[in-house]
């Protein structure tokens, strides 16, 4: 498949990139890794007149960790850079775990975490761990900078809540809570066997990656035994709003939310105790 005709713009600063995006608005798309946009263009699902490549904007591929401030991931940090980052592995293993299960080496060498989130796929694999980690998205645009909680960043499949002209610049993740344990999709926090806070994120079972707040509420301040975990898993499966498609039926997905939430909570509890 060939690419449609487009003009490639290569800004070297963020300000320049924002100005170009503001100028061309919906005629332009921002390109980071290209692992989503390039196939979309080949399939003619996206036919932007201008492609604003961010690769020449320097200093946007950082991954920095500070014990009090947490983790900051620049918009151009590739999936593999985050996966291989020692600070991510030791402080946010759930994020490395999720990214390690995404795509292949070649794709992860190109794709970025920022792009994975901006494309707002209901199945974005970096979305669920970052939802349980309470990540925030720093964006910059014509009206200046602002941060958006990740949960409010996803709007619907393929769309996020950035305003026209805004570009994602950084993903911010608060420091991991002490005595917490997370597994891909789920997180729980405990004190003396009591769950202080639980965060459950689900992917591929709603129009966007989502948090299962009702199930989380049921676990707060309680001792997590198997009966309660079972109840919360059922609640999470009722919060999910899956569709039937070529990959599986809605009924099967609801059932799997129950099973995976149950297994995830059990494993997260074990990790929290061990940590």
């Amino acid at each position: 498949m060939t690419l449609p005709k487009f003009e490639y713009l290569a800004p070297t600063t963020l300000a320049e990139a924002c100005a170009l995006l503001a100028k061309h608005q919906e005629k332009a798309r921002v390109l980071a890794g290209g692992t989503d946009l390039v196939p979309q263009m080949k399939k003619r699902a996206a036919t932007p007149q201008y492609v604003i490549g961010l690769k020449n904007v320097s200093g946007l591929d950082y991954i920095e960790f500070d014990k009090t401030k947490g983790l900051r991931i620049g918009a151009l940090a590739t999936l593999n850079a985050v996966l291989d980052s020692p600070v991510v592995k030791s402080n946010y293993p759930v994020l490395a775990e999720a990214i390690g299960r995404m795509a292949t080496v070649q794709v992860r060498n190109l794709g970025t975490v920022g792009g994975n989130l901006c494309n707002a796929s209901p199945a974005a694999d970096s979305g669920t761990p970052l939802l349980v980690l309470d990540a925030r998205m720093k964006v910059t645009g014509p009206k200046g900078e602002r941060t958006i909680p990740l949960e409010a960043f996803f709007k619907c499949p393929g769309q996020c809540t950035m305003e026209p002209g805004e570009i994602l610049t950084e993903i911010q993740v608060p420091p991991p809570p002490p005595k917490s344990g997370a597994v891909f999709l789920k997180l729980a926090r405990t004190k003396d066997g009591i769950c202080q806070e639980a965060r459950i994120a689900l992917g591929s079972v709603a129009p966007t990656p989502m948090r299962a707040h009702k199930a989380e509420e049921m676990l707060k301040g309680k001792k997590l035994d198997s009966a309660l975990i079972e109840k919360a898993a059922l609640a999470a499966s009722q919060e999910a709003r899956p569709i039937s498609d070529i990959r599986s039926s809605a009924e099967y997905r609801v059932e799997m939310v129950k099973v995976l939430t149950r297994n995830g909570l059990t494993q997260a509890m074990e990790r929290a105790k061990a940590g």
Partner: protein
Amino acid sequence: MDGKTVNACLTLALEAQGKDIMTIEGLAQNGKLHPLQQAFIDHFAVQCGFCTPGMILSAKALLDKNPHPTEEEVRKGIAGNLCRCTGYTKIVEAILAVGGK
């Protein structure tokens, strides 16, 4: 590209400008095969040859980073390169033979 494996079909030519590009053609030096190329021959890891360039360059990228990988690491390292002839056993054996040296 710059020492990292990437899918050519996802990379715009414009974004490859100024980068160090290595393809399978650049692997043999002075008429001498790279150890991975020789291992693929010795272990009968090539049948139709279609996937071989991707397999060998993926293996090279893996061994550059991790000179002594486990079998599981090799399998993950070559993921995304699809062999439709024989399966992957001989390919994995060839890479492990070089990685074990």
